[in-house]
């Protein structure tokens, strides 16, 4: 099965259409939407009162840790979707393969639990 460059045409077209849609909508809304800049509008919204102090202050690593762990396990779930869709055709072999895949993640999860990354205090 030899794929000639012409076979990639539909992919390119969809790519162009997608990015074209994004660019045109951004451009059209920028053009159509009325704009009125003012100093107060540039300030950050602080529930209605003037904001004091600098927003860029150091906050604890725990937030970042929880966020990254979430992304990690979220990506893991994405790999499960194609497997879950044709779950029947893949049969027992596919099931064991996915079981192995999940086992690797469980090892990582067990490590996290032991290191106490998810404990908040």
């Amino acid at each position, binding site marked *: 099965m030899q794929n000639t460059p012409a076979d990639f045409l539909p992919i390119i077209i969809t790519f162009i259409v997608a990015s074209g849609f994004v660019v045109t909508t951004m451009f059209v809304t920028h053009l159509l939407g009325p704009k009125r800049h003012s100093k107060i509008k540039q300030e950050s919204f602080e529930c*209605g*009162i003037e904001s004091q102090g*600098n927003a860029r*202050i150091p906050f604890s690593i725990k937030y970042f840790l929880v966020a990254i762990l979430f992304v990690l396990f979220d990506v893991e779930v994405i790999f499960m979707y194609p497997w879950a869709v044709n779950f029947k055709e893949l049969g027992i072999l596919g099931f064991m393969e996915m079981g192995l895949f999940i086992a690797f993640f469980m090892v990582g999860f067990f490590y996290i639990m032991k290191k106490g990354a998810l404990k908040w*205090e």
Partner: protein
Amino acid sequence: MKFEADQILKEAGKQFSTLNLGPTHPATHGIFQNVLKMDGEIIVDAEPTVGYIHRAFEKIAERRPFYQVTPLTDRLNYCSSPINNMGWHMTVEKLIKCEIPKRAQYLRVIIMELARITDHLVCNSVIGVDSGAMTGFLYVFQLREHVYEIYEEICGARLTTNIGRIGGMERDFNETAWKKLNLFVEELPKKLEEFEKLLVRNRIFMDRTIGVGKISAERALNYGFTGPNLRATGVDYDVRVMNPYSSYEDFKFIIPVGKSGDVYDRFMVRQQEMWESFSIIKQAIKNMPDGPFHAEVPEFYLPPKEEVYNNMEALIYHFKIVMGESEVPKGEVYHCVEGGNGELGFYLISDGGRCAYRLHFRRPCFIYYQAYPEIIKGAMLSDAILTLSAMNVIAGELDA
């Protein structure tokens, strides 16, 4: 910029970040501001600011004749305005020492208990909304609409009802009011149970509310707690039982009491109180005495319109009341009712003139919201928001 970096590093030692749970915030259900000093997710200190809808009720009350203060009172705790109206009317009746007939008292009890149910419905469903369960709110608001319809039959208004008069009720319940009331009484248990099933044994709700926003009974009393928040800590103080008014002594009902004073106990106390109010309403409907629905206090009770148009005394009394010339006994009186949030007291000094010389409202929300910083110290931010809605702080009553 070198200086900027040093400054942040120096501050990184034990520097708390301040978070402003500001005036316009969806979680505060009203207009309060709390500047929270946070260490990560834990609240270290809170500095509340109130008074964002201060409308000077006490100053207005010194310039209005007695019957015109009622529309003021139903903007205090506007989730259960009939209770405030009745409280004010009873204060004036205590001042002029007038005894209102049994039927009017029973009608008042029905309306007050309906208002208590609606107040607790909003508070409990908002606790659900703040802990993530939105459906409860939408189910329960349907019940509240049916109670609005009953109010409309009696006094024409939905929310700020201005119900009742000094000396009794302005009119008896008409035919459709009774029909709607009986319809509501049939429908309430089913809907309330459905709402309870949603939240009470819900794993997430229990984890989010048990042990959150605790206050001990002794600290609660020191902070002047009354109402469901005090009963949640274990003190069974209820004005309807302590000094009964409007013939509450004829009804059998228990006072639900919590144990640990946390959000779950407050929720359960309010839930149980709704069942008690429901049973009071049924008792009131069952043995409703007949007779006049207002007392014979002509110089205070506005005569019905048809009488005003065709007999002389009613016209004179009507004129005297409306122009506020009816002579009021001198003296000072304090009367309190069990409002949606606690003991709602009216301290009235009258010098015999057209208006009250001084009227002070004992507003439960204003008094127990002082404990909020102490309760949320050391709690997580999301628990602080849940505690705020569980204490049912109503801005109108707080900043009156």
